[in-house]
């Protein structure tokens, strides 16, 4: 078990290294393929007023003339021990984990990400609770009442939920529920209140985005739960449970749902990990200052270090989620051996 975790952790670090190399290579090459030179990249750091000489010096200091490998080495080292950025007027200390400097704001990327992470985590966790409860409950009832009106109606809605894009459901919910609208349940959008400042305001400001995001996922979970329950409720061990004289409620939840829950748990962990990299569409639709919004802004303003930072943070959460899911799997299913 311990050796398994250690091996998986090492493997996770290797994965992250590969991801960082790949993204670094892409972001190193993309501007150059687009015609940028070391000087034009450096110019973004020293500002428009600088003359050609200053830019050249800055490019040299920032290491833009070094080969790809050397630059990557510096970047990787920055993540581990921090880095110093010297672009002429002064030296900027970028503490570990240093994910580089923004071209535009000239601020290190990591602290930016840190301030946005609570928004994204709040959004993801809140939505996850809603979609897990709503999706699993709908799936269970649908499976038990297979072919009923409830089953057919909820599965049609679920199909819609899976197929409709967020910017559609998001706008519909904004139109219906936002401030000043007929079913207003939220304050004007875009005002995120940190949990520790005011939990009620926090929940209030996130309610619409939660519901919108959860709807998308709940649909998938309802379908997954339904098919899983239909399968497990046909298992021999369900018949055994009934033969013991258990009430139907215990049969369904303790024996049926327990058997159907394993694949749901797996998907849940992976979905949550991926969402830590930002729910791009939900955050933009509701103007929430999370990681996803940050990524979109970075891409539209071609601020490559920011984009790379988001990619790496997302990769980190995905790798972590994978590990946690695999460990949980062994807890949930005693037949699974971690070796």
């Amino acid at each position, binding site marked *: 078990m311990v050796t398994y975790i250690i091996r998986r952790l090492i493997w996770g670090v290797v994965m992250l290294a590969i991801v960082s190399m790949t993204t670094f290579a892409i972001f190193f090459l993309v501007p150059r393929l687009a015609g940028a030179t070391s000087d034009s990249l450096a110019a973004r750091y020293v500002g428009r007023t600088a003359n050609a000489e200053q830019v050249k010096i800055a490019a040299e200091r920032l290491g833009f003339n070094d080969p790809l490998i050397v630059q990557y080495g510096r970047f990787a080292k920055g993540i581990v021990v921090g880095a110093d950025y010297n672009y002429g007027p002064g030296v900027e200390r970028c503490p570990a984990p240093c994910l580089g400097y923004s071209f535009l704001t000239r601020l290190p990327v990591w602290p930016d990400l840190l301030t946005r992470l609570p928004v994204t985590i709040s959004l993801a966790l809140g939505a996850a609770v809603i979609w897990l409860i709503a999706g699993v409950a709908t799936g269970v009832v649908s499976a038990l009442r297979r072919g009923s009106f409830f089953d057919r109606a909820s599965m049609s809605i679920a199909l819609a939920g899976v197929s409709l894009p967020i910017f559609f459901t998001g706008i519909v919910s904004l139109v219906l529920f936002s401030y000043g609208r007929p079913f207003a349940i939220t304050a004007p959008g875009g005002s995120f209140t940190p949990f520790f400042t005011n939990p009620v305001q926090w929940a209030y400001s996130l309610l619409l985005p939660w519901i919108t995001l959860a709807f998308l996922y709940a649909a998938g979970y309802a379908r997954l739960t339904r098919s899983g329950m239909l399968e497990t409720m046909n298992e*021999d*061990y369900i018949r055994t449970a*009934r033969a*013991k004289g*258990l009430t139907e409620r215990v049969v369904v939840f303790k024996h049926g749902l327990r*058997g159907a829950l394993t694949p749901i748990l797996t998907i849940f962990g992976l979905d949550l990990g991926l969402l830590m990299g930002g729910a791009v569409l939900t955050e933009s639709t509701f103007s929430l200052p999370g990681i996803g919004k940050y990524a979109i802004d970075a891409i539209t303003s071609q601020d490559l270090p920011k984009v790379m930072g988001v990619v790496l943070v997302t990769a980190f959460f995905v790798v972590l989620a994978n590990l946690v899911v695999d460990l949980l799997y062994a807890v949930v299913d005693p*037949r699974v051996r971690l070796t």
Partner: protein
Amino acid sequence: MSFLELNDLRVHFPTDDGLVKSVDGLTFKLERGKTLGIVGESGSGKSVTSLAILGLHKGGRAMISGEIWLDGEELVSASAEHVRTLRGKKMAMIFQDPLSAMHPYYTVGAQIVEAYRIHHHVSKAVARKHAIDMLGRVGIPQPERRIDSYPHEFSGGMRQRAMIAMALSCDPELLIADEPTTALDVTVQAQILDLMRDLQQEFNSALIIITHDLGVVAELSDDILVMYGGKCIEYGTAEDIFERPEHPYTWGLLGSMPRLDRARTERLMPIKGTPPSLINVPSGCAFHPRCAFEGRTGGKANTQVPELLETEGGHLVRCHLPREERRAIWENEIKPNLESV
């Protein structure tokens, strides 16, 4: 009234292809402390019969009629909730494949404890003691350690023992074992059958053993019921069935019975043909398309359904052949053949 009485039990399933008459008019009696073997090829309705007794046939879809009397109570018309409270306590069941019949995510002990605590309001610790005790009684070594194992950590035979321990945990008065040894290899089969015989004597319950293999019930059963196409075609004491069987299908089963003095794969005279469809049951005697003696019944075999009639002292047979002729065929044509090999 006997402890268990089935009266013209019918279980039919409406399907897209037609009405499946899985059990079609079954009647029998069973006393406490006695063992009934129900024998027939697969698909003859044995499992559906046992599930119907426990009220576990798929409720909404199955059409059930007739009567099931258990200790003076009629179960077909009883409420589902009442039958549930009898399940596990008054009547319990052992299933064919203990690997799939036990929940893979719960320990063996947890599953026995659960079975016990539904019907006994005791603490977990008391129930656990009882579970360890039960595991020991069914011959599982080191039960206080094995109780925390998961089903997949047991061998097939040990799993079936654990299943038996679970079924017996509430001391049921009726125990139904549906193909309890079919999933096990031969040596383990014998051990499990010995165990069941011992336990039945100890608990004095009524036992129904269901199997497609007459060999399994040979030593255990007091009475044997042979089923074909959802109906009883011969019923009698074990002696009746093994010493003076009168139905051609029973002869076929005896001929295809694996015996210790023969290689298991070597079958003397397997019954030709395939089991009947339960939707379009063959006209007349359902066995006639496969019966070697069909020609000797004067054309009645495929037009008239034979009745289940008493031939002698509670021995019932469903066949158009006259009693004397059946006995003559058994003595002169079948029995010598069975013994010669």
